[in-house]
């Protein structure tokens, strides 16, 4: 491990040198946290390199964000990684279209990705290809929608599961 003293700039330079142009498309350093946009097809390749070559070996989080106005790039799948030996963090974003809401599963690299990907599927409907058990984790199995998507009204006046007879609002 020769990457002593990882910094945002040095790691981004190495990423750019290692991967071709269309793999890495933008960079921002929000709150000092290196944030890189990655092509959704190359996500395994990049994270494998970060884990095996750069000792960024701890998967903190997998989540998603819904940008309904962002046409063709409605969903971002977000990966937070942490190097336990260097105390260095990086955030990767892969954008997906709502028509192809599917990305490779990270369970081949991190066993801990299993439940995070199930949660992301549960709340946003992102399909993780190659996941051993792609089903809901928190909500009831019979639920037929993904509740964290920004496509529902805040309150639906026609809903029938709320009885106001005794508890007027």
């Amino acid at each position, binding site marked *: 491990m020769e990457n002593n003293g990882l910094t945002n700039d040095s790691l981004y330079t190495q990423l750019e040198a290692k991967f071709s142009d269309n793999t890495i498309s933008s960079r921002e350093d929000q709150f000092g946290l290196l944030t890189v946009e990655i092509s959704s097809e190359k996500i395994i390749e990049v994270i494998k390199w970060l884990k095996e070559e750069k000792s960024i070996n701890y998967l903190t989080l997998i989540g998603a964000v819904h940008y309904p106005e962002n046409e063709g790039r409605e969903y971002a799948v977000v990966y937070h990684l942490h190097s336990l030996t260097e105390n260095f963090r990086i955030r990767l974003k892969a954008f997906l279209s709502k028509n192809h809401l599917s990305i490779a599963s990270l369970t081949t690299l991190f066993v801990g990705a299993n439940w995070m990907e199930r949660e992301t599927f549960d709340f946003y409907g992102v399909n993780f290809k190659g996941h051993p058990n792609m089903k809901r984790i*928190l*909500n*009831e199995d019979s*639920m037929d929608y993904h*509740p964290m998507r920004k496509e529902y009204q805040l*309150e639906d006046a026609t809903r029938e*599961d*709320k*009885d106001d007879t*005794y*508890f007027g609002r």
Partner: protein
Amino acid sequence: MGKVTFDAKVETIDGQGFQLTRLDKVIGAARANSLWPLPFATSCCGIEFMATMGSNYDLARFGMERMSFSPRQADLLIVAGTISKKLAPVLKKVYEQMSEPRWVLSVGACASSGGIFDTYSVLQGIDRVIPVDVYVPGCPPRPEQIIDGIMNIHEMVKNESLRRRNAPEYKEMLSTFNIDVDGE
């Protein structure tokens, strides 16, 4: 032999050497003063219920010394707290495992109506899956309110028919919840 006295609310006809009353009133009083509650406590209402059970408020005064953590031996299901939609089938199973006669006390706004959790994951009142006898309002209710709810349960237990389970309206009411009365 000491003098035998019934609960003050049980009407008796007293004479020299005998005392008459109705069997259903005696059994009702006996049931009401020996209810075994099953606490189904999920959140802050459960904490208030623990205070109700504890030495200050002391539910044991009402013949409730023993909490029954098995539905098989419980008479009164006390649901205290938020019930998520995912938990609803579990609650229904617990209710179905209780044998007749059985009563249900819904403690607090969440169990009664979903409360502040007006959201996709929370059951909007347990009366969507099981029948409820008494609702206790409050968020959470104070122990006095829970005791008041239990007193109301006592009144029902003392005054309703001993064989409520055989009444056609009771069977019909349970069938609206898809609960099989005769199948155990």
